[in-house]
């Protein structure tokens, strides 16, 4: 079946099984290996992408379901000003260790900051509870998200 959608701003037309997982199409057919697989069953958030600007888990979405829609992976997301702010906050706060959760975490955190300009600690812990991290104990991730959200309120220096 032919499936047409937009990935990171570029139109993509693929001849493939519509039931294939979106994560496999992104990683294997399109080479977007920044999308990580931690569980393959919607439990860890490592495969977070944006579908029409909403965070979604690419391991539990069939590629047929994104027909005509806009998918953004970390490769596209990293062009955004918000990514730079969140990634700087993560780096400077020490919110990453092995880094395997980080791209998914940044996409989820960015979506939260977009939806809520000044999230408090509880809101962050609730909103990002679908993104697992085994290394950091979350402490510094929460601090980084707060810092990034503060910075988005200030005019960009970039």
């Amino acid at each position, binding site marked *: 079946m032919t499936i047409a959608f937009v990935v990171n701003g570029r139109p993509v037309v693929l001849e493939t099984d519509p039931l294939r997982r979106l994560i496999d199409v992104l*990683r294997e057919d399109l080479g977007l*290996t*920044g*999308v*990580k*697989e*931690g*569980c*393959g*069953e919607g*439990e*860890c958030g*490592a495969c977070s992408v944006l579908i029409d600007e909403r965070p979604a888990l690419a391991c539990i979405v069939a590629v047929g379901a994104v027909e005509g829609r806009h998918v953004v992976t*970390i*490769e596209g997301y*990293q062009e955004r000003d918000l*990514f730079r702010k*969140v*990634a700087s906050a*993560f*780096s*400077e706060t*020490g919110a*990453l*260790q*092995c*880094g*395997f*959760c*980080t*791209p998914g975490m*940044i996409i989820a955190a960015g979506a939260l900051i977009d939806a809520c300009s000044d999230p408090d*600690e509880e809101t*962050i*812990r*609730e909103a*990002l*509870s*679908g*993104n*697992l*991290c*085994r*290394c*950091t*104990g*979350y*402490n*510094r*991730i*929460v601090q980084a998200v707060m810092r990034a959200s503060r910075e988005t309120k200030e005019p960009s220096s970039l």
Partner: protein
Amino acid sequence: MTVRDDAWAKCCGKAGYMDELSFPGMLHVMVVRSQLPRAGIRSVHVPAVASGYYVIDSTDIPGRNVCAILKQDFPLLAEDRVSFAGQAILLIAGPERDRILEINDGIRIDYEPEEPVITIEDAEEGRIPPVFGTDNVIASIGFERGDVEKTFIESARVFEDEFRTGYQEHLYLETLRAIAVPEEGRMTVYGPFQIPDIVPVAVSIPLGWNTDRIRARVTTIGGAFGGKMETTTQITCLSALAAYVTQRPCSIVYDREEDITTTSKRHPSRIRIKSGVDQNKRVRAVKMDIDLLGGACFGSSAVVLDSSVKMATGPYRFENVSVRGRALATNHIMPGATRGFGVVQTTFAIETHMSHVARQLGIDPLDFRLGHVLKQGDRTSTDAVLRDQVKIPEIVKSVDAMSGYRAKRGRQAGSDATVKKGIGIALYSFGAPHTVKGTLRARPRPLILRRTGSGDVVILTTITELGQGIVTVFREIASRILDIPIERISMDNPDTDRDPSTLGTGASLGVTLFGKSVERAARKLKDRWDEPGEIEVMEDYVEPGYLEWDDKRVVGDAFHTYSWGAVAVEVSVDLLTCEVQVTGVWAAHDIGRPINDRLAEGQVDGALVQGLGFGLMEVLESKEGILQQSRLRDYTIPTMRDIPAIRQFFVINPYSEGPFGAKSVGEIPTIGAAAALGEAVADALGIEVGRLPITPEYLLDLVRAKEASS
């Protein structure tokens, strides 16, 4: 403070992980595994396979059918019998995953089931034929100081407890994987190897090759926690075997289920403690019997047990001590190295026991424990003199100031009719590095500092970055000594063809032992800085000269030094559901003088949460030898919502032998969290906890038993 050099690449998901790697013509490999914990294999039926597909069994192994961990006692692929569910029997290799699955569906293995050894009791009773040797004892170690039995007789009171702890999965977010690439008489194996040095040795055995024909290249590691040490030998040997047979690059990727059900974990334990207390309410004698539930072969259980036994009595001094430890074989996957080694289990036991005894004696549990804490100049349980200052009192003071422990303790239970609050504290210590004459085998472990012609410095070593930040710490040490910007110092993922074999990221060695080598190498390099062209300095580790160790008698300096810590955990327990919510975590540690506070704090945060997960929610049970939890849906680890903000502090206590005074931090914060959690629950509900994890079902039983008895 220095930002780690891999931060930006990791934010972008392009840091050189295995999942970014692919080779032309690469085949996927699936491992066909035993469904039964113990059985003879009567026959294996393999369907005809299309060209380009391969089914590989033990007869295809050109060398010896051995998967070498510490001993060479285990087959790489099962021949005529299986000893645990998940044991590898066959490999299926080919270009398309769907076709591989079809082939798998057509394979029939006819088993002759046998009664498996499942529990510690099964293993020690001897009713079922043994899995290992004649008595299932994989390893045993023990010692006695003073006269324990005599002191019990003289004691005013004697207390006994039994503790049980379960499996804990490492749950690194990147599952295990390996790719083997055949190259003109050689083989290169790529993977997230925590200790790449062991890969060529392991792969050489089934291939029947010399080790110099095998090259291990480490990809960026997506978390390890001890789970990518010895466990990687199996997957690398299997991928190398497939590559040998097919002469194509061969990739094995475990999905989460395969990773949880077939790789190593923290050893479950049963720990019995007996203590004798005198008229003055001092513990005069302690006897500990530690039994770790092992797998079907030697694995690395002996190493884990070694830490359990040598650190069994925690941060306390008892005049009469007897510790006996065993690792017992059962028909399960091999448990193995896991952050905190066997000290997480023993710390839970000794802390809970001490608090229990204190309550029986009517003394405040914290005061009681503080009254028994080791001091500088005291002798440890292995009869080593503690040379360095022990700052447990300052550590506890700091935790109390942050948490309000003393003000809160025992005053919160009546707070609410349906929700009870409680707070607990645990004290602990962790010895690192191990004394080489004892546990570590004596051999060179060099690293190299190379100054290039352009004045940049490269650190060459097989020490691996697991996320803990060792690369940043090594660069920082070299930068301070050489007085050049850290950006000019680099350290890549290891390659056994290029790097000297430093052997060993693990056991909290990295900073204290090898960071010191970096420091010494940098000093030598600095002296030669004016020489033209490229300069190389090779430096081996040096043990402090004062260490003495008698392995036979288990006497002396088991470790170079000790890190110390305390953590307070606050909980609220819902009386209806018995669910425990952690509402506060405060910790302080003496890790010498940290090199990089932010990285060290990150280690503490992550380790505390891993320890809390172990104590609270990470349930992994075996039923008849089959693990009942196999995915993230049923094996749940803490999420952001399960854990509150953590506050912590470092009590500075520079260690004269460490680089810039640093001691180890990687493991120690893991070991006290579950014990503090247990104490908090005990405080909230007025019960005594004896088992981890503290699930709602278990708590409900305890609460009911308490109600029934009152």
